[in-house]
């Protein structure tokens, strides 16, 4: 390395060589002796009663070891639990059986499973199971589900209502009574499919002798999965070991505990042999969670001068057929608290209704509630700007929380610890040459061309979370993180983290941080994650928490290692610890440069323990259990420049600027990569992605031939830059970057398209902004404008 400091250097990701050369160890790569293969028969109906199931032919098929139906599980397995029980919301949690008991409630609901010698045989046998279904009426949208007389999914959730959650702050009624301007709008956050590159997979191996379960599983949070496995299967938690080393992406879809995981465990225990389940891509589309799917009705109160004074939100969220692991928290806490965004609005009310429908359950998808919030407030900022005839930049400047107002308590009752929204905005405007662009836009409009500029000045809440806050929100767990830093006799370092990076690169960034602190080469630091047998506890990777929370835990443990090493060094150098300085891996006696011990020498002496100071225990290993005192609040400005094809409605992104403030940066290259990926997914929502159900509850965009996951040719060059406002309440100053791109980008694109078409009188187009939708909006606007003769 030719860098002076590891911390802050663009060290290449150590994960990549193994992953891009096919040497990773994903769950499906695991092969255990005697391993059997599982396939799940899934409902082809959105809603149906199961009258009868005949498994005889499947059971008789050569190579089939067992076939199970819902009836076989009754009394032997508990329903799949929901783990975010939001309080004061009349939450209903209907039983979610891993295989349906008597009713299927979405296409993809499990009906039966086959265990066979090989995966192709298991698949063949699914076709031999005869199921007699009685189709029931189907409801797929939350608005339909809320209607009187709608088909009912669960007897214990009348009106299909899963919950009604409320939040209010300030005097909202007064704000609207006194408003000079009120802007109203209805937004649709369409349903999305997460599409991690690696689908769901589990290899469950029950050891009948030791009565222990070893399970390889593609999960973002192995310790939570261990806990939920214990709850579901009644195997004691201390008898379960989860291994999830290489996980091929998640985007939230690998937070939940799934029926497939539980079924593999059940079958392995029942048969006494390892059982592998890997879903195929079609199965992934229907049986792994979906994201978003929220309809909001929004009213903003304001003054004529553009000052935002009040906000009222009614949100209808589509929860799908059952409540997935974290689902109730996503459209409520994770959405509502951050809705006021960067602005000083102090009067705010939000009502969220969650509905059951005959669709795949929804849960956290990259950003989880916060993209919906940022979209809402940033679209409303533009709508207000148009209403009061202000530039979108000026409306934002007028309402920003000023840089000198932090810490600032928002109408969402969050305490924003730090921020400088003006600085990020100014930087982005300079990068894009905003004034020049507006001039170019005016010129092109003269030629009948539609150039648009879209802003998104976002703030997000991440670094989840103070555990007391988690508890208050009804999350059935903590959100602290443990860390262990162990220096071996040879001076090599092992770091244990309870987070589970699965593409975010912390095997590299954590090694950089520890290497930097201990003064050892980055290659000498190993980061171990994803094994509950090695790591005492942890809450996983999601909510942009891994570096902010897990990284801070590692930082604290490393500080403790240095403190102990310093005492031992002082003892061995016959000096006072106060007379030692530690720099670049060496303890030196101040003023006596020759008297020094390297960290490696100290590690050896600590591990052999031949000459320890009085009362000091052997070894050089320290652990911490770090609970953050606040969330973190990354922010920034994204600017998207588009041109809309006047003939076809196609949107071409001309430029994309991302100025993010994620606090202190450990590895700029990895941070850029996270921004790139996040922006790509946000553009995907704005322009391409849409999970569509037909009236029968069939997912008609159920493959990569129909559902557009954008590829590299559909994503523009993303120009990244940063401002740096360190997080003031953790030791590293980092905030988190895993979700910023997704949270910031979608509305930047939509704002740009709407800005481009504003001369036509277009104020909104529903996502995704496909060419046909844009063309229809243009045509409708031109038709309605035609009588006056003005285009």
């Amino acid at each position, binding site marked *: 390395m030719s860098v002076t400091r590891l911390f802050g250097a663009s060290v290449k990701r150590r994960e990549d060589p193994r992953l891009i050369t096919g040497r990773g160890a994903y769950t499906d790569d695991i092969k255990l002796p005697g391993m059997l293969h599982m396939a799940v028969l899934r409902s082809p109906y959105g809603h149906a009663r199961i009258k009868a199931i005949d498994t005889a032919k499947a059971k008789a098929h050569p190579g089939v070891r067992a076939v199970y139906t819902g009836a076989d599980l009754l009394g032997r397995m508990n329903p799949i639990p929901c783990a975010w029980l939001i309080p004061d919301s009349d939450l209903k949690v209907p039983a979610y059986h891993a295989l349906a008991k008597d009713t299927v409630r979405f296409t993809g609901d499990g009906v039966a499973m086959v265990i066979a010698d090989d*995966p192709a045989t298991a698949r063949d046998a699914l076709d031999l199971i005869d199921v007699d279904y009685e189709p029931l009426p189907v409801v797929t949208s939350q608005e339909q589900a809320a209607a009187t007389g709608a088909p009912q999914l669960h007897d214990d959730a009348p009106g299909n209502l899963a919950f009604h959650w409320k939040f209010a702050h300030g005097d909202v009624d007064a704000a609207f009574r006194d408003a000079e301007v009120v802007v109203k709008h209805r937004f649709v956050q369409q349903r999305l499919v997460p599409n991690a590159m690696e689908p769901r997979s589990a290899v469950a191996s029950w050891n009948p002798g030791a009565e222990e379960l070893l399970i390889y599983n593609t999960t973002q949070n192995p310790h939570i999965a261990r806990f939920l496995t214990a709850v579901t299967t009644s195997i004691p938690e201390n008898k379960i070991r989860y291994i999830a080393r290489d996980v091929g992406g998640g985007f939230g879809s690998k937070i939940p505990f799934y029926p497939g995981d539980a079924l593999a465990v059940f079958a392995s225990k029942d048969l006494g042999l390892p059982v592998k389940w890997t879903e195929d891509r079609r199965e992934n589309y229907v049986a792994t969670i979906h994201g978003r799917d929220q309809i909001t009705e929004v009213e903003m109160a304001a003054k004529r001068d553009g000052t935002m004074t009040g906000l009222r939100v009614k949100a209808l969220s589509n929860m799908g057929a059952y409540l997935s692991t974290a689902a109730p928290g996503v459209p409520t806490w994770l959405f509502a608290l951050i809705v006021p965004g960067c602005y000083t609005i102090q009067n705010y009310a939000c009502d969220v209704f969650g509905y059951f429908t005959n669709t795949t359950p929804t849960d956290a998808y990259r950003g989880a509630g916060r993209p919906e919030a940022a979209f809402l407030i940033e679209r409303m900022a533009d709508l207000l700007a148009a209403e009061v005839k202000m530039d979108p930049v000026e409306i934002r400047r007028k309402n920003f929380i000023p840089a000198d107002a932090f810490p600032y308590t928002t109408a969402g009752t969050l305490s924003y610890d730090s921020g400088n929204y003006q600085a990020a905005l100014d930087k982005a405007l300079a990068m894009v040459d905003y004034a020049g662009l507006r001039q170019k836009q005016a010129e092109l409009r003269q030629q009948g061309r539609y150039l648009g500029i879209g802003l998104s000045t976002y703030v997000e809440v991440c670094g989840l979370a103070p555990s007391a806050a988690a508890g208050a929100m009804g999350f059935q767990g903590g959100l602290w993180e443990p860390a262990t830093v162990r220096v071996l006799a040879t001076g090599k370092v092992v770091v244990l983290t309870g987070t589970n990076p699965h593409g975010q690169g912390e095997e590299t960034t954590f090694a950089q941080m520890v290497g930097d602190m201990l003064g050892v080469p980055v290659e000498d630091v190993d980061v171990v994650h994803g094994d509950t047998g090695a790591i005492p506890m942890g809450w996983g990777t999601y909510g942009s928490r891994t570096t902010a929370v897990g990284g801070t835990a590692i930082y604290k443990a490393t500080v403790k290692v240095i403190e102990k090493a310093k005492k031992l060094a002082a003892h061995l150098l016959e000096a006072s610890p106060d007379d030692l300085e530690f720099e670049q891996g060496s303890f030196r006696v101040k003023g006596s440069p020759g008297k020094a011990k390297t960290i490696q020498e100290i590690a050896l002496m600590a591990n052999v323990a031949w000459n320890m100071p009085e009362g000091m225990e052997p070894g050089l290993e320290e652990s911490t259990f770090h609970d953050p005192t606040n969330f973190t609040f990354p922010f920034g400005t994204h600017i998207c420049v588009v041109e809309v094809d006047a003939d*076809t409605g196609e949107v071409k992104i001309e430029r994309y600027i991302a100025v993010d403030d994620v606090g202190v940066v450990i590895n700029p290259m990895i941070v850029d990569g996270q921004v790139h990926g996040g922006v790509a997914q946000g553009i995907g929502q704005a322009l*391409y992605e*849409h999970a569509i159900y037909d009236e029968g509850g069939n997912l008609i965009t159920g493959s990569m*031939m*129909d559902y557009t*996951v954008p590829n590299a040719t559909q994503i523009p060059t993303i120009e990244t830059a940063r401002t740096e406002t360190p997080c003031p309440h953790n030791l590293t100053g980092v905030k988190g970057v895993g979700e910023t791109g997704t949270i910031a980008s979608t509305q930047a694109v939509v704002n740009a398209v709407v800005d481009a078409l504003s001369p036509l009188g277009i104020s909104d187009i529903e996502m995704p902004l496909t060419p*046909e939708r844009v*063309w*229809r909006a243009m045509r409708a606007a031109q038709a309605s404008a035609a009588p006056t003769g003005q285009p």
Partner: protein
Amino acid sequence: MFAKDFSYAAPASLAEALALLQSQPEGEVKLVAGGQSLIPLLKLRMTEIGALVDVSKIPELHGITDDGDGVVIGAATTYFQAVNSPLVQKRCPLVIQAVSQVGDPQVRARGTIGGSLAHADPAGDLPAVALAVDAELRATGPSGSRSIPATAFFVDLMTTALQPAEVLTAVRFHATDAPHAGTAYVKHRHPASGYAIVGVAAAVWLNDDGTCRAAHVGITGAGTHATRAAGVEQALTGKRLDDATLTAACANAADGLDLMSDPYASGEYRAHLTRVLAKRALAQAAATAAQR
């Protein structure tokens, strides 16, 4: 994803392939070459076939040759081989213009010219090309060989004039490298699949005075099968291909199409795109023709 069991044979000669085709009941056997359409259908279990006959290794189905005023491309020629053929590049640039927009590099490495045409996917790119340059499709069956003009080949949705026991052996594309000739392929891709929502292949021949001697327009994607836009072609003959003339002629480009519809693009939008893209393709082809 696992297909149902099927038998597989890779004959080394055309005669052997024809025999295999006849040895199985109709509907139980299907030819496969690159497998870019059939294999996904089998793996998704959207279709079941008892026996696959792989024609990709038959020498008679390979090779690219010049036959005077056309280029004959063996049916098992991959897209990649066609795109990289100097002969095709020089004499039938329209094939290159279209094939370079097919799928992605992986698809182009395995997919074949003949497979695409015989499969007759309504959103395939090559049928529009075959129509625009008056291709001949050469087939051999139990009773001998015959040549089918492209205009008679595409019958309906995934249905061609090929008989069940026939093998498509080669396609002859008419050359468009004469002076005052130009071609273009303009496509609106489905953003996920890459298939043509609408694809328009245009070939234009100009007179010395710059007026249009002949214009051919092949349209794919919009309707259930690829078709020629005869109305547009007739409206252009003898005219200068200026913006107003093209706009007026292409207003009828979608006439008579049996329009398809899906969640991404309705029939109405496909018809609109057909008009817009027909004009763009003709304008590009005319500009090229004017420079040659």
